[in-house]
């Protein structure tokens, strides 16, 4: 993607975000530019921003481009609704089996962090469960037609915390997770503490158990940094969580310190504020700018000759971050 396209995508990701100084292109988009934008927007799950920006006239599009954007959004929203239907079935089955669960990411964020759920597209359902409940979870989910697609214990470089992927015959997918913070970041966040709170939202008249906003933030920060490059939609999630929920910033920081996740959280928040050019300064953004753990990571990377920005290179930036995560645990404990 060219710099121009990247800036457009960045502004599109931030569309509707209060305080963002990013700007969508003022001119119209020719067919090639439109095709590139649409391709990246769909890949990043930004159909909501694309459709609303086109419909509101904030993105200068032709009638055909507007219709295209709205059609893409309709298709994405229809898929999200079907996933939420499956989510309610799955939660009912897990409740009957007396298995504790927390809903992560997509639907939870759409309804709690975004003022308008139509801005948050998701492609599957993510559930946090305890590793020891594995058999009970799989058995309960079989009762709503879900079958294991990828065997238990599967993990890849980007999702080492995944327990299993399950799929129904209609193609709808559920990801089971046992952690929200991969241990390769040096995190010591335990899963049990994530089940202590009783945070819920209402979906179709039913209560859906989720993480606290502070825990959701930590999860979103890892989501933003867990791929080969920062994920746009996760950065937007971070901004939404910090700016649009009743998050207690001190509690969020305490939670990050307790789990030894401060380097990743600081980096992700800093990245969010920089990429979206957010004018609003809030305690967490101020802290992320002050926190120098990432600067230390970069310096250590430089001295070790590693290439910064290659997260899979565990001897480089990634490994350094991990080591720093462990170091920060000591600092965090001392400060408390």
């Amino acid at each position, binding site marked *: 993607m060219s710099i121009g396209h990247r800036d457009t995508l960045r502004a599109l990701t931030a569309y509707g975000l209060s305080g963002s100084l990013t700007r969508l292109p003022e001119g119209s988009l020719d067919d090639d530019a439109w095709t590139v934008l649409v391709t990246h927007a769909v890949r990043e799950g930004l159909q909501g921003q694309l459709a609303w920006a086109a419909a509101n006239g904030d993105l200068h599009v032709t009638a055909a481009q507007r219709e295209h954007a709205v059609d893409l959004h*309709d298709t994405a929203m*229809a898929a999200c*609704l079907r996933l*939420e239907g499956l989510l309610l079935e799955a939660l009912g089955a897990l409740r009957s089996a007396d298995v504790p669960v927390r809903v992560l990411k997509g639907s939870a964020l759409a309804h709690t962090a975004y003022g308008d759920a139509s801005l948050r597209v998701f492609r599957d359902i993510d559930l946090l469960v305890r590793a020891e409940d594995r058999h009970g979870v799989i058995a309960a989910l079989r009762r709503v037609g879900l079958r294991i697609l990828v065997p238990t214990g599967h993990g890849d470089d980007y999702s080492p915390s995944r327990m299993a992927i399950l799929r129904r015959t209609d193609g709808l997918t559920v990801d089971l997770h046992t952690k929200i913070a991969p241990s390769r970041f040096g995190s010591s966040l335990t899963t049990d503490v994530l089940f202590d709170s009783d945070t819920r939202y209402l979906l179709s*008249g039913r209560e859906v158990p989720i993480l606290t906003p502070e825990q959701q933030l930590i999860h979103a920060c890892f989501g933003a940094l867990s791929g080969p490059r920062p994920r746009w939609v996760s950065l937007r999630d971070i901004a939404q969580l910090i700016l649009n929920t009743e998050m207690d910033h001190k509690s969020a920081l305490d939670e990050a310190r307790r789990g030894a996740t401060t380097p990743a959280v600081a980096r992700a928040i800093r990245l969010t504020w920089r990429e979206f050019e957010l004018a609003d300064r809030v305690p967490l953004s101020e802290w992320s700018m002050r926190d120098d753990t990432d600067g230390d990571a970069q310096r250590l990377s430089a001295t070790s000759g590693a290439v910064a920005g290659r997260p899979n290179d565990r001897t480089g930036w990634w490994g350094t971050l991990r080591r720093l995560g462990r170091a920060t645990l000591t600092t965090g404990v001392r400060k408390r």
Partner: protein
Amino acid sequence: MRSEAVLLRRTPDGLLLLTERSDAPVVLRGTGALTWELLSRPSTLEELAEVLEAAHDVDREQVVADLRPFLETLREAGALELTS
């Protein structure tokens, strides 16, 4: 009145609804989306027709004739509940 057991999304051109009884979302645009908004509080057919007649400057009988099957479709889908 609206059923509580509805999954809903706004779109630039209307609304998408999904209920337990339907496999695919119901798409509401224009008058359909407006009618759904009006149903945010329990309403009679006549009350709905009165608002829609004024909004679209069409004959009341025509509005009622169009509304009946629309509301029936929503009821069958489980999106609406009849109250006495």
